[in-house]
């Protein structure tokens, strides 16, 4: 924490001294990367894996600061108001940054307050059931749900979250009713599913990869089968056009000068296109991506439309 504090002090002095940042001499000082979640989460793992490459590429320290709170909203509200000089950037998750401004009170950021430099990875959301659950396949699961409407408990992290929306989407497409159980973190979902306290869960591929021997993974939300789970069919293969996933990467305030945006984009793209980086990410259940500013925003727009449609269909409103 001490080093991080000093970095901040240095950073503060820098931001006072430099009038207007330009790409020529960017970056001159350490880059403050705001992490919206606790250490050890998916955003953190990706950031930590990128850190050495980014520092080499940019030639300055890449300081990761944790600002967890309100499911990320605290950090993003701060980031939206931060100085747009390229020295203040942060991690994000989609759909979190789409859903929070719509459904959460007191959130002071909007989805289009930010420029996304790069989407670094995503984790498809898959469907898994507890080991001794009566259904063994996706079809059997749907039949079971139809025979026991509202009886099957299905855990996920948070309300108005990626997991919640994946559950809603599935319920709509399959015409079934599940009992959605809201947990506060992935590890709680994992414990509950492994311990048989919930029947099913729509959860991240990282968890599914880690625990695949202790649960039954029925389907996965990637467009093609995952290399980590080659025997698991996709929703698409099973006739369900749904691709639930959580995408993560780095973003900053939208008003950062264009040339500095480009410089940061390049740093991220150089990092994420490294084969050894990709291999590392794949091993633990991520799907690594190499996406620049334009591509990332195209993806974001698509997700915005998709989620607004779902919210409308289920008549979801701010609590």
């Amino acid at each position, binding site marked *: *924490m001490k080093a991080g504090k000093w970095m901040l002090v240095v950073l503060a002095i820098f931001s006072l001294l430099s009038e207007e940042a330009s790409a020529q001499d960017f970056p001159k000082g350490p880059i403050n990367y705001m992490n919206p979640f606790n250490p050890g989460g998916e955003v953190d793992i990706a950031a930590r894996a990128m*850190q050495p490459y980014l520092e080499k590429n940019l030639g300055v320290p890449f300081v990761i600061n944790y600002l967890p709170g309100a499911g990320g909203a605290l950090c993003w509200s701060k980031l939206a108001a931060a100085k747009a000089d390229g020295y203040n950037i942060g991690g994000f998750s989609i759909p979190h940054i789409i859903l929070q401004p719509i459904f959460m009170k007191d959130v002071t950021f909007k989805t289009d307050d930010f420029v996304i430099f790069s989407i670094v990875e995503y984790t498809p959301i898959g469907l898994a059931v507890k080991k001794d659950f009566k259904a063994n396949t996706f079809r059997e699961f749907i039949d079971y749900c139809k025979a026991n409407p509202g009886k099957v408990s299905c855990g996920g992290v948070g309300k108005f979250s990626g997991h919640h929306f994946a559950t809603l989407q599935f319920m709509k497409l399959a015409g079934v009713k599940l009992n959605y159980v809201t947990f506060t973190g992935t590890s709680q979902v994992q414990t509950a599913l492994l311990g048989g306290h919930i029947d099913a869960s729509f959860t991240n591929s990282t968890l599914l990869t880690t625990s695949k021997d202790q649960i039954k993974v029925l389907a996965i939300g990637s467009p093609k089968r995952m290399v980590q789970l080659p025997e698991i069919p996709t929703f698409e293969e099973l006739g369900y056009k749904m691709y639930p996933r959580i995408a993560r990467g780095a973003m900053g305030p939208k008003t950062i000068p264009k040339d500095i945006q480009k410089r940061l984009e390049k740093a991220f793209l150089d990092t994420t296109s490294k084969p050894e980086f990709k291999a590392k990410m794949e091993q633990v259940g991520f799907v690594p991506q190499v996406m620049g500013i334009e591509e990332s925003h195209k993806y974001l727009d698509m997700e915005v439309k998709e989620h607004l449609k779902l919210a409308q269909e289920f008549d979801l409103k701010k609590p």
Partner: protein
Amino acid sequence: MDLLNHIALGAQILFTPINLFFCFIGVLMGTLVGVLPGLGPTAAIALLLPNTFHVSPVSAIIMLAGIYYGAMYGGSTTSILVNIPGEAASVITTLDGYQMALKGRAGPALGIAAFGSFIAGTISVIGLMLVAPPLAKFALAFGPPEYFSLMLMGIVVLIYLASGSILKALMMAVFGLLLGTIGMDAISGTQRLTFGLLELSDGVGLIPAIMGLFGVAEVIHNVEEAIRREVVTSKVKNLLPNLQDWRDSFWPIIRGSVLGFFIGILPGPAPVISAFSSYAIEKKLSKHPEKFGTGVIEGVAGPEAANNAATGGAFIPLFTLGIPSNSVIAILLGAFMIHGIQPGPMLISKHADLFWGTIMSMYLGNAMLLILNLPLIGLWVKVLKVPYPILFPLILLFCLVGVFSLNYSQVEVALMIGFGVFGYLARKFQFEMAPLVLALVIGPMMENNLRLSLIISQGSPWIFIEHPISATFIFISLALLISPWIPWIGRRRKKLQEKVEGEQI
């Protein structure tokens, strides 16, 4: 003989210069962050993580684990010396530890905390080694209903054993539960009592609360009676626990170790809860429960052993299931992933070197910590001789910096000061802090698990009775609540209470 082979393998991994070095750095860092209030192992591990990229995974995990259990050693130091818990897990140590320091027995208190931690650390490592896989299933058997009932029992036990007025303890516990409702509703996402402050949406921070209730309140309290105190601290004598201290502490340490280890396996803030439980149990079993809170060594030995043993237990779900039981373990899990190690049930067999190397390092690390901490006791005790006009501003400074460095949040600093004023007033009227802190820790978890249980059972409260483990806890809680009405137990409690109240006046 399999075990011996494994131990040999672990020793082989550990006794290389590089791994010994990382083990030492880990425990040293751990002691340091433990001593500094506010700075916790989570922050330290997160900060050091990038420095481990270039070393082998075994070295990295050895160091990071060292920070974790090292912090539990250091956490007791400030609790005992200046009544500020270095870690949340050391809150309960302030009750008797600080009283011992006031009586000039800071040395034995620090000494028994170090020895107790060492013994507990060793017991929990042996436990980890022998029974890790079957115990992992024990953790999985705990679902939402089991957690709710366990926490309900925790609160009932704490109130039942309160030293002063049971009514005041109940008031503090209820106030803690109320404070625990602040923040975003985990089930529906609604903001409750946050007054538009996003900083409050994850609830009242535990660290600002503890630093305020203990640190700031202590300073205000002492400013009032500084003159009287100065005389007390001048007679610091014998630094190590004597034979009588050992006789009093031996069983509390053993019980605390076993208890802490089992509670450690369960997800959640295990070191905190295990320390509270150990204190409660020692008080219950003691022949002189009325003396608890006045500086008895059992009140330091048991909880300090328990919080240390809990760190060993917390590794079990990590190594056997890949489940992080708290934030520190979550970072370690992240470290596994960064180093390309697949966590999960296959870890012990696939990465035997990592598992056994880490286990062996924990034996050695505990020994290192003891050697590191014992000579320091003399030094720490001298802290008490620092004149109050210098010590108090320093304590305040540490509290302010410590809380601000957590999340760079002014709101949390303001919260801490508010808690400080509240803590000072509460102390004046003889309210205990412990029920408030425990309620604040487990309140949100208790609420969350109650609601999760009811969602799973679709509204039927019988879920708490249908699950055998949960039913047992409920039964014990009920028995404790009813017992005051059973004549002979009630009489004993009343007698005890009168004795305590008599002493306070």
